């Protein structure tokens, strides 16, 4: 189901977007400290499932990848892997300061600063870390965006794949995952 330009979605695409919007599965991946506010969001106090959202164990099944805060370059390699394993349409929600401009770790030798250089971000949430209310509202916004066909980061990634790859390589040197046995 390759969509064309968003402005002229056909009926099927609109229906598809309706379903996409109302059933968002998030990748269960805690990349940074913002993830500590995800359990409250998912569980009884804030009950994210009311929005049709739920955690998923593998990237294949997930629709949205949450970048919950800072990303060390080691994690970024995994995030890129995960993101590329996800099936279209897919979205990225970035939590908190760190994803926008490095946050408190702006001068760290291990963390990246600007997430949108490496993967396309559909929505940012302010805060360090964002409160569950912020996360919930972000998801509500994401739903609206999807319904209106505005969450097109994944398409941008496809179209500008070379640019993203180059940035990834510039910062990470190689996007290969090594294992700990060193064999």
């Amino acid at each position, binding site marked *: 189901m390759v969509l064309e330009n968003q402005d002229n979605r056909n009926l099927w695409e609109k229906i598809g977007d309706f379903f996409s919007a109302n059933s968002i599965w998030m990748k269960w991946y805690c990349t940074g400290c913002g993830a500590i506010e995800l359990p409250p969001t998912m569980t009884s106090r804030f009950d994210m499932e009311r929005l049709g959202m739920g955690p998923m164990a593998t990237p294949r099944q997930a629709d949205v990848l949450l970048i919950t805060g800072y990303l*060390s370059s080691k994690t970024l390699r995994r995030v890129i892997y995960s993101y590329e394993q996800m099936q279209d349409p897919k979205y990225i929600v970035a939590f908190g300061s760190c994803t926008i401009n490095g946050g408190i770790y702006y001068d760290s030798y291990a963390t990246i600063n600007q997430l949108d250089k490496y993967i396309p971000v559909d929505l940012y949430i302010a805060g360090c870390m964002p409160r569950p209310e912020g996360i919930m509202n972000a998801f509500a916004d994401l739903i609206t965006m999807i319904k209106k066909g505005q969450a097109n980061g994944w398409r941008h990634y496809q179209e500008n794949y070379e640019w993203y790859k180059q940035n990834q390589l510039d910062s990470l040197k190689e996007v290969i995952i090594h294992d700990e046995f060193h064999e």
Partner: protein
Amino acid sequence: MKEVKLFLGPQHPGMHGNYSVHMYVDGDIIKKARPTPGFLHRGFEKLMERRLWMGNLALIPRICVVEPDINEMVYAQGIETLANVEVPEKAHWIRMLILEMARLAIHIMGLGGIGGPTGMYTITYWAIAQRDLILDLFEEITGARVYHMYIVPGGVRKQLPVGILDKVSKLLDELDVKIPEYKELALKHPIIHKRIKDNIMLPADVVWELGVTGIGMRSAIGKEYDLRKVQPYARYDQVEFDVPIANYSDGLTRMNTKYKEIFQSIRILRQVIEKMPKEGEVRTRVSTGSALRWTVPAGMVYSAIESSRGEYGYFIVSDGKEMPYRIAVRGASFPQGLLGIEKYLVGHRIDDASLWMDTMGVCSPEIDR
């Protein structure tokens, strides 16, 4: 049979945080395991050398996201030792209030955490919702839910808001009723017993070999090795509490010890509320001048307190300038999270890997820093 290489994590629902264990399995049995930390590495120890003594206040809680307050406490305590500053009496009690509330929060979450690897999500849902009520109180006291930045060198940052102690004791009353329900649901459950009883052992000699502290140590060797008792800080020597111990450290014993510690924390909190001075200053200056120019006299100190996972310490070196010369962090879960996994996860089943992490209390951000 051929051994299969598996990456358990970092993106694996059974993982606690952004952590990974690479392993070879034969069937379901783990044959080799290598912990892979570093996904959360931010270079804190370097960054702290580049921030003001006061500016580090924003940095330190972020070392361990699940229990940030201990970081503030060890940092403040270390600086006070170096600067030879006596903290006002009321600040000590407020610190205990914060620390024990934090211990409650993380223990309740840890109790709920047993639901993740065993699949009984109901208790996870309950526990985290319950913990959120504690976070609400934290927000009222400190102004933030998670990163409180409240315990500062020289005391605490602000006076307690009016009426907060009543709210805390109301919450404690509620917990008295609610926490036993968790035990009914989980710790008495026959299948939970099947999963963690006599499983995930941590014998006493392994404790000493790895250097495991905290609940893992106390439930294995049966001694009250708790820094709150052994080296009382704040005003822990003025409250009565027991340190739950056991002589047999399987997963279930550790969970039960954790469960008992919750009630000890509640007991401490009740005494804190009762004994806290009503009036008084809560902060003294550790240095003269504006915060931009605060200095700490040259010297080195190892400041350690009892976190929910054991001995948590900062080794602080000052050269008398506005910034620390070096701060090294002893993550409480460093021993069991690294060498423990490499040596003693072997022989368990895959199913036990995340239970290992859970009952041992492995906190990845404090290992990675």
